[in-house]
């Protein structure tokens, strides 16, 4: 860094983590990265540089570059322009990592949260398993296993006759 610009004071790791967790997910902007469960440890690495761990949801998630860029901005704004974003795969993401607050926010925005805990093998939902996020009816049935983004499938409510996305348990 040149000395011409006054340096932003370096914020503590906890504060950086809080701000990263509050960033909206690019594909599901109703939910923060923290509630989605993709933010791992935020701590200085061996060389003293602050490192933010991100666990991708799907390995091919197209939102990753955007997430990485947004986290870098937070790092810079928090006085860590040399900070790093590190993708970790060692503990793979599952929908079980979504917080209760995250599930509530998804449902409030018309996206049914995953109904079952993520089993080792994916299962598609059957009749009446997912309550409709619009009218609460259980008269729902699967429509398509694949939906508007990789993590969503599409169901259909026979009560209010609305299709709705469902975050597939995986």
């Amino acid at each position, binding site marked *: 860094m040149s000395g011409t610009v006054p340096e932003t004071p370096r914020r503590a790791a906890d504060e950086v983590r809080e701000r990263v967790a509050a960033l909206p997910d690019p594909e599901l902007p109703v939910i923060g990265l923290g509630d989605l469960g993709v933010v791992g440890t935020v701590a200085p690495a061996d060389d003293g540089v602050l490192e933010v761990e991100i666990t991708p949801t799907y390995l091919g998630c197209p939102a990753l570059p955007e997430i990485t860029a947004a986290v870098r901005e937070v790092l810079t704004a928090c006085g860590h322009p040399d900070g790093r974003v590190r993708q970790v795969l060692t503990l793979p993401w599952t929908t079980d990592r979504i917080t209760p607050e995250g599930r509530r926010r998804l449902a409030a925005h018309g996206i049914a949260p995953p109904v079952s805990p993520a089993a080792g093998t994916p299962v598609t939902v059957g009749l009446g398993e997912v309550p409709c996020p619009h009218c609460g009816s259980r008269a729902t049935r699967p429509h398509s296993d694949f939906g508007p983004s*990789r993590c969503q499938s599409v169901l259909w409510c026979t009560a209010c006759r609305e299709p709705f996305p469902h975050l597939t348990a995986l």
Partner: protein
Amino acid sequence: MSITSDAPAARPHPLPGGPPAADPDLARHLLRLGDDALVLGQRLCQWITRAPTIDEDLALSNIALDLIGHARALLTRAGRLDGTGRTEDDLAYGRTDREFTNVLLTELPNGDFAVTVARQLVYSHYAVLYYGSLAHCPDPDLAGFGARAAKEVAYHRLHADRWTVTLGRGTEESARRMRDGLERVWPYTAELFEEDEGLRRLAASGRVPSPAPLRETWLGRVTEVVTRAGLTVPGPAWSATGGRAGLHTEEFGPLIAELQSVRRQFPGGTW
């Protein structure tokens, strides 16, 4: 165009003379797995705007997206291990057709929808087993990748199973096409379980699983679905091989040309 098998060595790479290959056996194995995923993903992308329904358009493109995600992780790792320092992009866009080491199954033209379903059936059942085993390997990053990828391909398997049964038990026409699709892809399945010296060395030291022993379980599971579809598994008449050595089918060239076209027109371009 390279026409000899030692062509890769003659090609300049980003780190001239670079560091010695750190782990050539593992690099080669991960490159092969990555090429399988990349080439199948690219093939499936050719269904976009051409699938029988919009839901299938979404399904096949989402499956392709997952596969390309798997390829990115595998190629990145392969480039770090092979001593050339190549990135995932260097490997995907900067190699000639002879340098790709995918199994021939993944490059077969899509055919009709039933051929694509048949290929998804045999590949996803294999990938669930292989990635599932990889999840138990001692390398934590590779194990984490295997665990996550196994879940994703299990979802693809669900899709393939359902369509195999739907087409097999549908009309006379759909059953005939499903049967033809299985006949078309079947000779290309043996290559998925091939092993060479390098892979045997890796497997013997317990670093990655060996694919050959998974074949029996794979056959049992595929047979179960095909039987449920009211069809029979084709008999082993002949087996294709050569993809692992870079010997590809005639249809491979145009596929790779399309994959690499933007990089050729705008070398080094960013946006």
